[in-house]
């Protein structure tokens, strides 16, 4: 195992596949996408298979995540937004599971790949755009024209609104990507200090205690970040969907 903190983000081919000159290899990233789907769907499927009237602990975990997302979406986008529940629930569970799986040593963190988070963000924004124009036609463009703004300021405000809308997929994806990346690099660097200091003999082992404590503490913090980033992604998705359901209401 290399001491290079970015080594963990390397994508390696497992099954090389090439279609039309484009590399579609099954990589370690693909493997962990499959693992994420398997773990999340398997957990939700198995814990709810009893359909218990009185839930077991694990069944209530599944129910709590369902109700958590349902209330988040209802608060964020109203009852009209509930048709997007499967999408927000899938996004939340997928990101949360991917983040948590990434916390295992030697596991690959798929949310630390900018292309993955960017694709998920584009999926959200694409849904907002598609549903907004499908439902409201050009009325969706009212989104960029806030009410009660003086006519002189209108061009400025509208351009700011458009820029902020266009920056959404970038901020949404970079936030998740950067948090996961930075957290894992920090963990790796501190853990690397422990091994390299303890190679220095007795004094080094004594000195390695501090980075070891830091590593443990940061691991705890990273679990929080894993949940928080999945939550933030879901909340922002709900807010953006609200724009598609009720444009011009802000």
């Amino acid at each position, binding site marked *: 195992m*290399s001491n290079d903190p970015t080594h963990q*983000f390397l994508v390696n081919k497992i099954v090389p596949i090439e279609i039309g000159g484009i590399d*579609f290899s099954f990589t370690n*990233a693909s493997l962990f996408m499959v693992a994420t789907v398997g773990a999340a769907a398997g957990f939700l499927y198995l814990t709810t298979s009893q359909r218990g009237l009185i839930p077991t602990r694990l069944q209530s975990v599944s129910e709590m995540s369902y109700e958590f997302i349902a209330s988040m979406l209802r608060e964020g986008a109203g009852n009209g937004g509930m048709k997007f529940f499967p999408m927000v*629930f899938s996004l939340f569970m997928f990101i949360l599971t991917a983040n948590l799986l990434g916390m295992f040593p030697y596991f690959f963190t798929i949310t630390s790949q900018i292309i*993955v988070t960017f694709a998920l963000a584009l999926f959200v924004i694409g849904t907002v755009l598609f549903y907004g124009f499908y439902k409201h036609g050009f009325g969706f463009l009212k989104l960029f024209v806030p009410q009660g703004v003086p006519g002189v300021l209108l061009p400025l405000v509208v351009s700011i609104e458009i820029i902020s809308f266009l920056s959404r997929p970038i901020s949404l994806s970079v936030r998740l990507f950067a948090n996961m990346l930075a957290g894992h690099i920090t963990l790796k660097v501190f853990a690397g200090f422990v091994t390299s200091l303890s190679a220095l003999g007795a004094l080094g082992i004594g000195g390695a205690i501090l980075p070891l404590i830091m590593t443990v503490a940061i691991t705890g913090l990273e679990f929080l970040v894993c949940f928080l980033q999945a939550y933030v992604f879901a909340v922002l998705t709900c807010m953006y969907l609200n724009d598609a359901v009720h444009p011009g209401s802000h």
Partner: protein
Amino acid sequence: MFVTAAYAQQSTTTEGAEAHDAAAAGEVHTETGVAHEGEAGSGVFPPFDSTHFASQLLWLAITFGLFYLLMSKVIIPRIGGILETRHDRIAQDLDEASRLKGEADAAIASYEQELATAKAKGHQIADGAREAAKSKAVADRNAVEADLSKKIAAAEDRIADIKTKALADVGVIAEETATAVVKQLIGGTVTKAEIVAAVKASAGN
């Protein structure tokens, strides 16, 4: 990369005197070289390595699409069904509970009513018994009193009889006494008729 370099330096400084220094340093440098080579294959920071973008997008689309389908077709209807069943069941149980409460209230009301009726009946019975006992006592007393007064009357009759008899005897005794007295006093005899007349006269006084 920073850590690797630091590690290399540390190994050099601490184990500098030792014989295998060169070998160790060489090993570390080789390792670093390999790591650099791995990165240098694309020459960019791994998450920004665009050579795998197509594969990542394809596999993300496949896996996430599958996940979305599983969620929307299987998991979400199932959990939604569980929660709905539970809400229905709770509402049903609440209805049942309020129905049972109503029944219990009705039972309590009827019980209290029966209790009141029974109390009233009890009072009635007690009153009747008391009345009966009272009237029987009165009747008994009257009977006893009547008996007593009859006995008293009989006794009085007897007393009167005895009295009259005694009084009648008084005349005879008086006559005899008077005859004896007169005989002693005057030594003569008095006719019985005279004595009777005299006794009558004194009794008449």
